[in-house]
């Protein structure tokens, strides 16, 4: 029985894991870097140990030190969260050697899925579709043309030695095949001294759709349906939703079966995610598997009603899955938006600093996974994501309206955040209609950069407010006003104020 878990992570995900541990009556051990003494995860756990200086490789990636704390505190298991050590096969093995349960799959599954070529071969063998293309480089023109006809248009021809777009050709029409192959080869030869090429199916309107799976150590595996993660900026997910607005029940069932097959092919156990690239016609191909809890896992929890961290812990503890595939269904619609401390009006520059004041949106359909609070100084060493705002609605439109409401009531001051940018996403027609691909953000760049302005009355009132703040400042500097009514609270306020300095 797992009775104590060390959480080898920080930020919102550490808090997230600790919440479920508390609910299960499991004690928690936090580890923290010197930069994180003030971080909520350090203070939220039952126990907390410093494991090194701020840089991750000296603390959150310091496997020896983390294992030492686990041994010392008598932790039965380690939850790696996402990032850091979560997909580190060596660490999983180290844990096993020390008799500590690693909450995640075994090293074999991590290694197999971690290497692109091995993963592709394993998936092909398991009957999971992969992006059609050549497995080996081709030099012969006829063989190339034959391969293209096999794959079907459109295709992308890429120089095997290539890079920087040289020797690349997109072929969309049949009459262009021969000339494109010739062109790519001669360009590749000129650029790299090597005219061999790869050919790959080109997905012109790609959607990033992933499936959540859960597998126990007794050979049972289920999927918890899809997440649509196509709204991305520089390959970073920005918005996730489930169900996907383009999904059909038939394709969902097929993809789910393939996701389960993918997990079974590596004898997977725990929670994992199979990412598929999908086109507008719902042709889908295995992209990769994330062998850990995903940042965006809450939207699945909201719609399927399963606590994924609880399941992870139960699986790690050797329990059988308690739900069957046919018992699961999707209920309503959930959207997650990732809130970063960054300046969307200044090329998304990270914007660490101290949070003066934070006001969370509350009320129906709002879930909030965060670790920041009033007065918290966001450290400069780690990911600038400060919170995940998740909404649930009875249907997609209700969820979007709720997210708008939530963002409008979410006020953080002291640091700039991506909130204004996220609000603008919700206003874009393609998003509202659910017709978007991974090109969504570049495609709508102009509209997404629009700035709102204040009315003239608003500006003038703001000026009067600034003046009042100025006057208040002056008054307090000159004289501390006499108290007409003696008030304990006022005194308390004064004491607090003094302590703050």
């Amino acid at each position, binding site marked *: 029985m797992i009775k104590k878990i060390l959480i080898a992570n920080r930020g919102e995900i550490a808090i997230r894991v600790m919440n479920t541990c508390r609910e299960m009556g499991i004690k928690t051990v936090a580890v923290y870097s010197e930069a994180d003494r003030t971080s909520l995860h350090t203070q939220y756990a039952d126990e907390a140990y410093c494991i090194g200086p701020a840089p991750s490789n000296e603390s959150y990636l310091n496997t020896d030190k983390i294992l030492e704390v686990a041994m010392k505190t008598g932790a039965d298991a380690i939850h790696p969260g996402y990032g850091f050590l979560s997909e580190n096969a060596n660490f999983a093995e180290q844990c096993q050697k020390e008799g500590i349960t690693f909450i995640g799959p075994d090293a074999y599954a991590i290694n197999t899925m971690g290497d692109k070529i091995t993963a592709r071969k394993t998936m092909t063998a398991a009957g999971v579709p992969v992006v059609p293309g050549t497995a080996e480089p081709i030099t012969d023109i006829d063989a190339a043309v034959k391969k293209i006809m096999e794959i079907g248009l459109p295709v992308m021809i890429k120089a095997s030695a290539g890079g920087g777009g040289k020797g690349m050709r997109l072929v969309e029409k049949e009459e262009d095949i021969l000339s494109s192959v010739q062109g790519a080869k001669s360009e590749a030869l000129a650029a790299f001294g090597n005219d061999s090429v790869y050919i790959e199916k080109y997905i012109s309107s790609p959607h990033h759709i992933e499936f959540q799976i859960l597998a126990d150590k007794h050979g049972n595996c289920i999927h918890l349906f899809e997440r649509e993660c196509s709204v991305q900026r520089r390959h970073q997910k920005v918005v996730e939703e489930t169900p996907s607005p383009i999904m059909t029940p038939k394709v969902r069932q097929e993809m789910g079966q393939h996701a389960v097959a993918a997990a079974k092919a590596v004898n997977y156990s725990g929670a994992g995610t199979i990412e598929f690239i999908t086109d507008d016609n719902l042709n889908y191909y295995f992209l990769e598997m994330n062998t850990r809890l995903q940042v965006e896992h809450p939207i699945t929890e909201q719609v399927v009603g399963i606590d994924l961290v609880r399941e992870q812990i139960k699986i790690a503890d050797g329990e059988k899955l308690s739900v069957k595939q046919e018992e699961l269904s999707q209920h309503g619609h959930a959207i997650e938006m990732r809130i970063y401390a960054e300046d969307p009006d200044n090329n998304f520059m990270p914007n660490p600093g101290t949070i003066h004041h934070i006001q969370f949106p509350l009320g129906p359909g709002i879930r909030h996974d965060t670790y920041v609070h009033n007065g918290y100084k966001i450290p400069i060493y780690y990911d600038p994501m400060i919170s995940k705002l998740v909404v649930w609605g009875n249907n997609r439109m209700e969820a979007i309206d709720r997210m708008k409401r939530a963002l409008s009531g979410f006020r953080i001051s*002291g640091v700039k955040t991506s909130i204004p940018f996220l609000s603008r996403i919700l206003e874009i027609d393609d998003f509202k209609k659910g017709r978007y691909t991974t090109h969504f953000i570049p495609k709508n760049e102009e509209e997404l950069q629009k700035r709102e*302005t204040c009315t003239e009355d608003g500006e003038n*009132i*703001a*000026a*009067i407010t*600034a003046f009042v703040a100025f006057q*208040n400042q002056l008054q307090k500097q000159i004289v501390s006003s006499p108290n007409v009514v003696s008030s304990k609270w006022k005194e308390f306020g004064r004491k607090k104020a003094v302590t703050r300095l």
Partner: protein
Amino acid sequence: MSYQIDINGNIKDFEILNRNENSISARIDGKVYDLDLLETEPGLFNIIYKGKNYNFEVIPKENKTFQVATSKNTLEIEIIDAESRYMKNRKGAEEEDAAYISTPMPGQVVKILVEEGQEVKGGETVIIVSAMKMESEYKVVKDRIIKEILVKEGDNIEGDQPLILFE
């Protein structure tokens, strides 16, 4: 007392007509505003004007400058009184170009590419600073001589903190 007030670069005449606890009456460029203005938490203000709600955060900056965050945007507001008018005129002559390099946000000094006394050409990078895994290069605008380097590699720095002074 009459002031001027600079709202995002627009200078307007400003006068407080009356103030009695929450009730404030002020004139800006001839228009009178009667406000019910409340500081709900330090720096947070709720204002009711003609029944409409306005929620602002006021962040004091140096001198008499304030940043006011509205629900839509952030305004830079400066109170201009006799003193600041005088200071402004005086400063204008002295500070035609920045006397030092600083960064707009906190971070860590990754690399310093110059030494004290060194002459650098306009456009040359003098320091590299990282914040949240992103590195930024800071360059001089025109030819300068390095007077003093106030930080060293590895230092954690605040935003707007002078890092390198010029002659």
